[in-house]
């Protein structure tokens, strides 16, 4: 853990951690819980909206859905990354394997199915784009895996 870590410094600026608001300890704790609630709410509503959009609107919604998912993924990675920088691992399988994860996976699968449906049934959205999308997702997954391995090795050393 280092306080001069770029991500920690970024979080301090974006989160306005120096605000006098955080001086009062219970106020800070309550706001932390409210922020967690807000993050979960954004996570679920974005995924739900994206899934509904892709199934209702179809291919024209794809760019917006992909953009929203990329943004959501980046925000989640930064949030998890910040916690890990300060020694809190939130990706332990024992902690993650809960009913809510199953619901989230189901929602994600519905979204993926909607994307595939849009890819193969609509003229405006070609199958090649779906292949590109899948390749991009695979590359992103690979990059995340590499990052996770590197960060785990760093934390061990």
């Amino acid at each position, binding site marked *: 853990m280092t306080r001069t870590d770029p991500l920690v410094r970024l979080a301090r600026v974006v989160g306005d951690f120096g605000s006098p608001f955080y001086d*009062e*300890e*219970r*106020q800070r*704790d*309550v706001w932390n*819980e409210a922020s967690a*609630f807000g993050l979960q709410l954004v996570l679920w509503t974005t995924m739900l909206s994206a899934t509904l959009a892709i199934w209702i609107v179809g291919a024209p919604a794809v760019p917006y859905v992909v953009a929203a998912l990329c943004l959501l993924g980046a925000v989640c990675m930064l949030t998890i990354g910040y916690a890990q920088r300060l020694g809190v691992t939130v990706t332990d399988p024992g902690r993650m394997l809960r009913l809510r994860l199953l619901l989230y996976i189901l929602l994600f699968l519905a979204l993926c199915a909607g994307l595939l449906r849009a890819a193969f049934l609509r003229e405006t959205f070609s199958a090649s784009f779906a292949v590109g999308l899948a390749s991009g997702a695979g590359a992103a997954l690979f990059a995340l895996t590499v990052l996770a391995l590197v960060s785990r090795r760093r934390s061990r050393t």
Partner: protein
Amino acid sequence: MGRTSAQGRTNAVRTHRQQVGLTQAELAVACGVARQTVVAVEAGDYAPSVYLALDLARLLSATVESLFDAERAPLDPAPGDLS
């Protein structure tokens, strides 16, 4: 707080505060926290930081150990919980 951080632990802050003759608002000002924080601590809904606990003990002429019981109070069983 939505999730009670005191985990059902009891404390004697209210008793000591009444013995000393302070109001919740006065104690809060003296500790530099909001009155709601004192209310939450007394109700067992919030576990104060070690620094706030030390401040409370000093202002109430007590020790942290006498204010905060280490034992957990038995939690109320959830409705329909037969175990």
